[in-house]
């Protein structure tokens, strides 16, 4: 029997361009003689080889030991080395720039740094590679030619998508206890509604199951779900497995805490007249904005400080895990009904009626930062997930975007009606409520936006806005109930199973809760830069070093003076000693000097080029030059 390889050899003149048959391992010993036999054939393979070598060269730095190794079939690996990783993915997981290597004498430190950098690079690459395998992808709504996406109605979207997604758009008509505040739990599983006139409902909104519904017979200012169950309460029950998430309700008088069965767990009398609340999930802190109108114990306490204000505003922090007040800060800035948190560093942002936004941490009695953002009062504030941008809206009908790392304005928009509520989604969509319409904007900080991405009109005035985490859903609480809007591209498509898992079982939830409570971050660690703890404390080191020098009487870290070794055969002459000294002189400063010289050269070059250009421009004579005198 003739193998397919031999067949091509026999009629090579006729079917020159016939595809080469797949290589077989039994062919390998014949290859030499085959190439010798047909004269025309070798034209093709070298080209391929060339391409291959080019590719291989390109990828050289990442090549492993597999390079050049042939398979049994005789073919070489078309994709040698480890698979390439896209640069932007790697960038996404980058935490730190490369460190400057210390000098030669600190060789141990140098080794340590090199090793840790290697490890972090490997982690970064692995994470980036893993990122390619994530199951879900994000996408946005796209209109036909000349069709604006904001013209597409919610009903159309709900009809177009699959049934389960379509079911996520719904209306709850609750006109009786009107306007509603909205909050989703951290996993996005539960929806909490708080009606102004006392109606509170907790809903598993995806299955549309009502967890509890109560009327507290008192006005409700705000609701917040806290994502943990009450440990004390659980202990009281003898460690029963019934753990239900708690939620806090700011009622007319006190702050109450209910569990998801609607049982009142606590009434916290230390927190009265709460207007707004924010829950810091990793610190287990409930930050509350309190306004005291009446005469109460706190007024007495602060009587000496503020004698003549009728309303005093406080920012109070409650540690939810142990039920203790952590800090109470008198803000001295009037009514606090605009509040949001920076999810990146757990700083609380407060908006005030004089147009300023202030940043607070529980460790400081004064505001960390005061920013004048608007001409009129601030109506709403929100901060994006990465802690980079803050979006504010004010009475001056403006919507402004700030970079809160540098505290600088980025963009300013004019909304004819002004936005009363703002909310940012996980992937950076901004929803703004103006009266009874909800508008969603895309890319507010990167490109100048002229029209909204989506818009929707609801029955009454909007009172609360909240994007559902890990879902393309925006919850709108308004005077006539609640509307769940579909906003494609709003939520993070891939959740992390160990952090916030929407599909977790009761057991998983309990495990997570214990873990989360164990790694509760202390309130003292809240600061503007959350990575501050991982940085080197140069100041303290310097101080300690000085103390040490004082105690010892000499500097133990001082570099020893270089004394050249004595060499025989006349090589320790004065001249050669000097030369050897010169070799190590200023070794520590050489890098710096080299760099500054290079920088200078660069600047000089740029300057010269600029001048050249200028000279060129000036040498071109315009027609009007003749009139110059």
């Amino acid at each position, binding site marked *: 029997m003739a193998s397919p390889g031999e067949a091509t050899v026999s009629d090579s003149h006729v079917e020159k361009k016939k595809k080469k048959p797949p290589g077989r391992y039994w062919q390998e010993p014949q290859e030499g003689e085959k190439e010798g036999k047909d004269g025309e054939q070798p034209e093709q393979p070298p080209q391929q080889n060339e391409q291959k070598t080019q590719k291989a060269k390109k990828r050289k730095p990442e090549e492993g030991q597999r390079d050049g190794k042939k398979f049994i079939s005789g073919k070489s690996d078309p994709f040698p080395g480890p698979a390439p990783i896209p640069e932007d993915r790697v960038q*996404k*997981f980058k*935490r730190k720039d490369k460190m400057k290597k210390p000098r030669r004498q600190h060789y141990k430190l140098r080794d340590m740094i090199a090793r840790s950098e290697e490890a972090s690079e490997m982690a970064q690459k692995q*994470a980036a590679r*893993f*990122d390619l395998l*994530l*199951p879900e992808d994000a996408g946005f709504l796209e209109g036909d030619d000349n069709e604006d996406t904001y013209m597409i109605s919610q009903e159309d979207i709900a009809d177009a998508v699959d049934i389960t997604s379509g079911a996520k758009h719904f209306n709850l008509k609750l006109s009786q206890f009107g306007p509603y505040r909205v909050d989703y739990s951290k996993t996005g599983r539960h929806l909490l509604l708080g009606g102004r006139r006392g109606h509170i409902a907790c809903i598993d909104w995806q299955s549309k199951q009502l967890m509890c519904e109560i009327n507290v017979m008192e006005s409700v200012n705000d609701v917040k779900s806290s994502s943990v169950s009450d440990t004390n309460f659980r202990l009281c029950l003898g460690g029963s497995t019934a753990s239900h998430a708690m939620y806090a309700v700011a009622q007319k008088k006190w702050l109450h805490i209910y569990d998801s069965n609607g049982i009142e767990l606590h009434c916290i009398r230390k927190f009265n007249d709460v207007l707004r609340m924010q829950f810091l999930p*990793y610190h287990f802190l409930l930050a509350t904005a309190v306004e005291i109108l009446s005469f109460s114990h706190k007024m007495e306490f602060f009587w000496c400080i503020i004698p003549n204000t009728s309303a005093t505003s406080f920012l109070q922090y409650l540690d939810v895990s142990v039920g203790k007040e952590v800090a109470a800060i008198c803000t001295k800035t009037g009514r606090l009904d605009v509040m949001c948190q920076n*999810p*990146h*560093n*757990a700083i609380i942002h407060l908006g005030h009626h004089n147009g300023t936004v202030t940043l607070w941490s529980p460790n400081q009695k004064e505001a960390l930062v005061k920013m004048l953002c608007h001409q009129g009062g601030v109506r709403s504030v929100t901060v994006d*997930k*990465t*802690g980079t941008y803050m979006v504010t809206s004010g009475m001056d009908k403006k919507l402004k975007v700030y970079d809160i790392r540098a505290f600088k304005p980025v963009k300013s928009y004019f909304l004819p009606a002004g936005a009363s509520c703002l909310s940012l989604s996980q992937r950076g969509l901004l929803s703004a409520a103006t009266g009874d319409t909800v508008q969603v904007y895309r890319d507010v900080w990167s490109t100048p936006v002229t029209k909204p991405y989506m818009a929707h009109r609801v029955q009454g005035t909007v009172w609360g806005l909240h994007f559902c985490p890990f879902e393309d859903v925006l919850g709108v609480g308004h005077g006539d109930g609640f509307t769940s809007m579909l906003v494609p591209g709003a939520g*993070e498509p*891939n*959740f*992390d*199973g*160990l*952090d916030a898992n929407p599909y977790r079982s009761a057991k998983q939830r309990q495990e997570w809760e214990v873990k989360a409570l*164990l*790694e*509760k*971050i*202390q309130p003292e*660690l809240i600061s503007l830069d*959350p*990575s*501050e*703890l*991982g940085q080197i404390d140069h100041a303290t080191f310097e101080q300690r070093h000085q103390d040490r020098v004082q*105690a*010892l*009487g*000499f500097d133990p870290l001082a570099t020893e003076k270089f004394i050249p070794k004595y060499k025989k055969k006349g090589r320790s002459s004065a001249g050669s000693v000097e030369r050897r000294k010169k070799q190590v002189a200023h070794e520590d400063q050489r890098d710096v000097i080299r760099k500054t010289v290079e920088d200078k050269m660069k600047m000089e070059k740029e300057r010269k080029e600029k001048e050249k250009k200028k000279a060129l421009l000036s040498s071109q004579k315009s027609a009007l030059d003749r009139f110059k005198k």
Partner: protein
Amino acid sequence: PRNYDPTLHPFEVSREYTRALNATKLERVFAKPFLASLDGHRDGVNCMAKHSRSLSTLLSGSCDGEVKLWNLTKHDCVRTLQAHEGFVRGIVVRYCGTSFFTVGDDKTIKQWKMETPGYGEEEEPLNTILGKTVFTGLDHHQKEAVFATCGQQVDIWDEQRSSPIRSFTWGVDSFSSIRFNPVETELLASCASDRSIVLYDMRESAPLKKVIMTMRSNTLCWNPMEAYYFTCSNEDYNLYTYDMRYLDRPITVHMDHVSAVLDVDYSPTGKEFVSASFDKTIRIFPKDGGHSREVYHTKRMQHVICVKWSADNKYILSGSDEMNIRLWKANAAEKLGVLAPREREATNYNQKLKEKFQHHPQIRRIAHHRHLPKTVYHQSKELRIMKEARRRKERNVRKHSRPGSVPVVSEKEKHVVTVVK
């Protein structure tokens, strides 16, 4: 499903810090190093030897001339023999593990079989050598039938002969300890009572070199991994690690004991060593650290005379004056026994975290805190004050004398008098 996106995991550093803090606290909670006490000796335990082949066997010799063999897994004595009259000064197991040697105050070297004599047989040594002077220590060669003793002089013995094949002396002095180098097997080091440490080559007729220190060294031990380093325990409360090539200054001075250090033994990994002291404590030092990472003590333990680190790097054995041998964990918070994979993963992760945040003041404070007996605590405080006073005085002297006339002498240089070749 995991998503490692950093924006989904805020507060990385603070959360890791909290984890590290918890891990450090848990480590201190679980730090229970004491495992067992082996009692049975009728006098203080003077010397111990590890079996060269069997992990679970330990030999110990006491001050009344008794030698006991212990089974460490069962915590009981398997054999007792009256080896000498007076102290058992040294005990060492032959490299093959079939027999062991003892020396005692009765000027004899005896070789014993490791096996228990059968029914009706008498407990008799295989071989007895009568020496001229008292022997104070011995050590066996790593792979040849040669052993070395020390006393008035250092002797090298062939197992087949009854007289030494070589004797070394350097001045008239007695020696307290002798050790073969585990890698360069022909090399020896010994501590002499004229405050010196002497190095020998077995093949040569004269000693190599010696370093004289300000105080006497009691014992020494070679680093089994980097065998050019050895550590000696000194009477001046310190231990010194030397590089045998450069004896003019020690590599590291290990301070923390508050009384004379009596014995030292390296871990088989060569990264740490354990020291026994007259101040009734055992301390564990990293090989290049100036201060101990761990201190072990009990209310009942008296002056610790000998100490050994087990060959599996997990246990420490200490023999003390009050007739007991104590078994300790080398890593106080370690969980013994087989770990489940998840458990091991968790411990590894915690270990890494502790390492990462070890310099944070809060964590450092918790990790470094040790309860000390009152005497040791007060004495260490006193020593610190004395040292500070001395330093202050020196500083003042330097301040009021001509610049350069009172040079700064580092701690390492202070304790070496001379090196003689």
